[in-house]
């Protein structure tokens, strides 16, 4: 706990737990078909979005892909809006036109997400270019998985960001999996070894929110002061199947229930350093649970869209 204050530690824990508990509630609900949209769960990987977004203001923009829940909640999306989107209701963040993979919340710097792997990396660069051209001091984040690094748009994006020196943070949430392919099967080179030829490239332990928080802090300080791009790779573990609500059963993706659990790690650290008590953790857990109850109720009671509104904002 040498890097975290008590306030920060507890704030991070609340976000980690918000994402975890939100998704754990999805697990039993999903098979009942109340959510007719694919879900890509973040369970186990929460340290990455939480550690990154802790350094961002609402004005900083972030662009991510299909695995939306983690970064969306970490960046400040209201749980109600996200839950209602999954429920296909007009109170959802995209009025239910987008579904689980297309979340949006302009007030919190989320200007849309994409289900086509790779492309949104370029959007972050463009958003950073906009900041540069218009003299804003915000930054932009391109947030993606290791699979997205296979794509040509990744290469083109880091090159352009480096050439034009725009204030963008590239975050690779590296769960070492692209669907069922291991990283060795889909990407030959080490991410940082390549990217360091374009910009400062950092590595963090993506199962440990302290590590992500401190490494990303360093990277973002570089971006904010130098107005130059930076890259952070966060190695983490996917606990669930690529899609849906089942635990993964891949023999090559064994999960250690403690060492791979950012929540266990942070709670241990906070407890050992007497920054939190078991009772406080219980209370945090319970408060979040109540908020999720409310979000589910909100979603359930929200209206479905009208079929007549099909062609709208085309």
């Amino acid at each position: 706990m040498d890097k975290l204050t008590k306030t920060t530690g507890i704030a991070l824990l609340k976000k980690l737990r918000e994402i975890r508990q939100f998704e754990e509630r999805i697990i039993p609900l999903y098979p009942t078909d109340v959510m007719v949209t694919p879900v890509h769960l973040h369970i186990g990987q929460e340290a990455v979005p939480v550690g990154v977004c802790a350094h961002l203001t609402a004005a900083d923009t972030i662009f991510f892909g299909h695995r939306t829940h983690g970064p969306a909640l970490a960046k400040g999306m209201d749980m109600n809006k996200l839950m209602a989107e999954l429920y296909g209701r007009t109170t959802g963040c995209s009025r239910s036109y987008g579904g689980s993979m297309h979340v949006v919340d302009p007030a919190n710097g989320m200007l849309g997400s994409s289900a086509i792997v790779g492309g949104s990396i370029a959007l972050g660069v463009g958003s950073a270019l906009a900041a540069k051209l218009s003299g804003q001091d915000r930054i932009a984040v391109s947030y993606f998985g290791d699979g997205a690094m296979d794509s040509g748009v990744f290469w083109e994006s880091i090159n352009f960001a480096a050439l034009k020196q725009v204030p963008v943070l590239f975050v690779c949430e590296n769960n070492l999996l692209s669907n069922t392919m291991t990283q060795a099967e889909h990407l030959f080179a080490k991410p940082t070894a390549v990217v360091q030829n374009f910009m400062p490239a950092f590595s963090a332990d993506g199962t440990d929110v302290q590590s992500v928080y401190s490494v990303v802090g360093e990277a973002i300080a570089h971006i904010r002061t130098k107005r130059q791009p930076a890259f952070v790779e966060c190695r983490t573990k996917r606990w669930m199947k690529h899609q849906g609500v089942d635990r993964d059963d891949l023999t090559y993706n064994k999960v250690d229930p403690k060492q791979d659990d950012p929540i266990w790690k942070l709670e241990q650290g906070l407890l050992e350093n007497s920054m939190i008590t078991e009772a406080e953790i219980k209370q945090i857990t319970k408060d979040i649970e109540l908020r999720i109850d409310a979000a589910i109720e909100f979603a359930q009671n929200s209206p479905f869209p009208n079929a007549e509104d099909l062609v709208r904002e085309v």
Partner: protein
Amino acid sequence: MPWSRIEQSHSAADSGRIISYKDAIREAIDQAMIHDPRVFVIGLDADDKFGAFGTLLDMTHPERIIGTPISENAMTGVALGAAVSGMRPLYVHLRVDFMLLTMDQIVNYVAKWRYMTQGQVKVPIVIRAVIGRGWGCGAQHSQTLSSFFTHIPGLKVVMPSTPYDAKGLLLAAIKDDYPVISIEHRWLYKNTGGVPQELYTVPLGKGRILKSGNSLTVVATSAAVIDTLNGCEKHNLDVEVIDPRTLKPLDEGMILESVAKTGRLLVVDYDYPSCGFAAEVCAMVAEKGFASLKAPVQRYTFPESSMPASGILERAYYPNPDKIAARIKEMLAEQPVLSRA
């Protein structure tokens, strides 16, 4: 050439063997790979345990199934490079939407290579793509895009609607020395039908009349064929249903002959309307079959909109048998335009 002895059989089999559309595709690929060592499969997740929705499971030659990174654009170039070097690649995309990443390779390279080299280099490449909505996937995972490929000289485009055609058209495509795009609607995968065991081809460029009728011609593609047939059966409609099977080259003669009989045309195509395949068929008939037309041609397509995610909207977006039947009834209720000012 191992393929020259494979006979074309045009009529559906009386073999009595009933298998699914998915298994028909699987069998075609397996047999093609056994039959010709130049045939190989490439695609993202082609080699995973799901085997491209089951169409690549338990292959006799798994060593010729090549999985790829998320690099659709270069992978199309890889397939082309292998094809011009004497192989016969079969590229598979689990969603047609990913093919948008490959348009440079498909349009600038694959489609033009034979023309630019004036036939000195053959391009025996087949690209399969799965289409169709499902489970609130939203706008980026639900497109059809068949008109893109149909627009480009140098590409052939097939959209099989039955298990028999799925096997026969895929084998014809693999056998062909020109690039062929094959588009498969996921809703058809579980449908069953008679499929001969042996290798056979369904000729590219030949349509099929799936139902005879006199009052109106419906030209439908892919899943729309099945929906139209179901709609007609349920609502007892006397219409002729044509499945062109190949969007390009198009069996214009079959369509024109039918319209000459019925005087009316409806095209049902699950795709965006503007500049779509439905527009092409309507324009072709208004050009070449104008004198037979007794009433305005019509298109039944997606609305002018992307696909929404929410279930209610998704269902409103997609045509279905009842909606198609309703549209046909409306058309039949209209007075023919018999003479002009």
